[in-house]
């Protein structure tokens, strides 16, 4: 029988770890930032001049900054360098940079999404040319630095990571994670790239009492992400149940769920982000649309003063539970605007 992996599914340990990291000395953050910059420079040094000119953009290149999508790169072309055009060592240097920027758990999630697209390519046969691990792009805006702001982008079909580095801060918003298929087998193991996002949400909605569920569950269908690609700078009116109406255990479950997105970036940046989200918890809302039995397709949204998360099953492909789109935003700090002021 295939073994199921939830990619760090024991995230209560993770949450405790990142909250502890918040107490770690500043030197630790500084060393993480230095390591990320060193990895970025190693990657850039592995490229020839022509490749470097393709991968580097001005930090203030607003068009490049917002050039991301859930759609395949053949349909919405990305700029930067394509993984399939890199040599083995260059590709390794690119992935090392990603690994240095993300947490272990976040890096594994990203790999699971990329490999899922490879699985989609194989399953699609002749129509698979628009999918696969070779069609993901990397780009760098600005000059990697521990002082000045710069940005790393990595994405393709069903993935858009926009990581703005401002000194020791790493801002992951806006980013899009998605999966199709949402469950596949790799080396004998069942992989669910967004399995924890699904299971923890169902656990939370089922932990609500009847009165709370009545508040949380919307009476209408939500066909897609509301604040997906192209919706930068927008905030919608919140709905559902306010976290101030949840008990401590339910609030902890919600924070664990949020950690699935906030914890993609490296532990130091994630810890700072979780502290901020926790501080705003009383003004955060949880809304649900769809059945509450795990295994059925359901949409949910978590929205707070500095947070928007949406999880939206897609009907395309036949089984909505096998095709998921998610978005992660901070309306006050997407692309690090709060720190940079652009």
């Amino acid at each position, binding site marked *: 029988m295939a073994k199921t992996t939830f990619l760090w599914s024991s995230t209560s340990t993770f949450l405790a770890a990142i909250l502890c990291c918040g107490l770690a000395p500043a030197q630790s953050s500084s060393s993480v930032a230095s390591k990320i910059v060193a990895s970025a420079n190693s990657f850039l040094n592995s490229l020839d001049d022509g490749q470097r000119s393709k991968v580097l953009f001005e930090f203030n290149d607003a068009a490049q900054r917002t050039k991301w999508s859930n*759609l395949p790169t053949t349909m919405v072309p990305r700029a930067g360098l394509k993984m399939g055009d890199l040599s083995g060592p260059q590709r390794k240097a690119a992935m090392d940079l990603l690994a240095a920027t993300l947490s272990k758990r976040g890096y594994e999630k990203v790999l699971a999404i990329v490999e899922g697209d490879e699985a989609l390519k194989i399953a699609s046969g002749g129509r698979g040319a628009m999918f696969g691990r070779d069609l993901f792009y990397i780009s760098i805006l600005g000059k990697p630095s521990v002082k000045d702001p710069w940005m790393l982008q990595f994405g393709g079909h069903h993935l858009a990571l926009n990581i703005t580095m401002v000194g020791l801060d790493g801002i992951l918003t806006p980013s899009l994670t998605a999966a199709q298929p949402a469950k596949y087998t790799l080396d004998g193991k069942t992989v669910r790239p967004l399995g924890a996002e699904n299971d923890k949400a169902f656990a939370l909605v089922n932990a609500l009492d009847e009165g709370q569920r009545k508040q949380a569950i919307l009476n209408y269908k939500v066909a897609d992400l509301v604040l997906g690609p192209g919706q930068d700078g927008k*905030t919608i009116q919140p709905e559902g149940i306010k976290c101030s109406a949840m008990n401590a255990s339910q609030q902890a479950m919600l924070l664990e769920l949020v950690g699935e997105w906030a914890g993609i970036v490296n532990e130091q940046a994630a810890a700072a982000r979780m502290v901020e989200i926790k501080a705003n918890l009383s003004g955060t809302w949880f809304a649900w649309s769809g059945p509450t039995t795990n295994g059925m397709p359901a949409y949910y949204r978590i929205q707070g003063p500095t947070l928007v998360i949406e999880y939206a099953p897609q009907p*395309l492909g036949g089984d909505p539970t096998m095709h998921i789109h998610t978005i992660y935003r901070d309306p006050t700090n997407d692309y690090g605007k709060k720190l940079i002021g652009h």
Partner: protein
Amino acid sequence: MRRIGLNMLLALSLIGAAEAHRLDEYLQATMIEVKPDGIDVEIHLTPGVAMLPVLMAVIDPDRDGRISPAEERAYVRRVAREVELRVDGVPAPLSFIESNFPALEAMREGLGTIAVKLRTARNGHELRFENRHLPQVSAYLVNCLAAPSDGLVVSRQKRDEAQRSIEFEYSFSAGAGPRPRPAWTALEPFWPAAIGMLLLARMSVLIYRAKRGERAAKISSQSLGT
């Protein structure tokens, strides 16, 4: 209607030919932005790959396979006709602000979005929006944008199950409210009746004058012995 039906059949036969994109739905996502000086309604219309033939039957009546500027304008007018905004229970006419049509090629691949922006200067405290455009083939999203910097406070949001309609109450916190409207605009719903009464009064005056003229002429002719 028959042509749309045939195109529906063609579209449905295509379902399953693609795997990664919106296929058999026309996604109509509406954002409503309530501002102190009016209300903007922005509708993003994204046809799925299999829905394009259905949509083209609507947008491209001359069947030449392209969308001309005149056809764009006609389609936008139709969309504007088939949505309704009511403010405080009274229809608020929406005027055209701008639209954008993607390349047909992008729509063929299921990633082209038609954007239509409409606006009304009307404001109040209760809003209702309904989208009646192509309900047979559409999935809907409708939301109200938050605008804390304007002091906008929204409450009692209600939608139907398909999100074709939304209604909510709104207000602006002190110092950020809608610009005061002239008192006479409060009588807006009664304008047709008022205009009708004025016309009636004017006609009565004219009839009275005509009759008085006739009578005077009669008296004058009698006094002249004619």
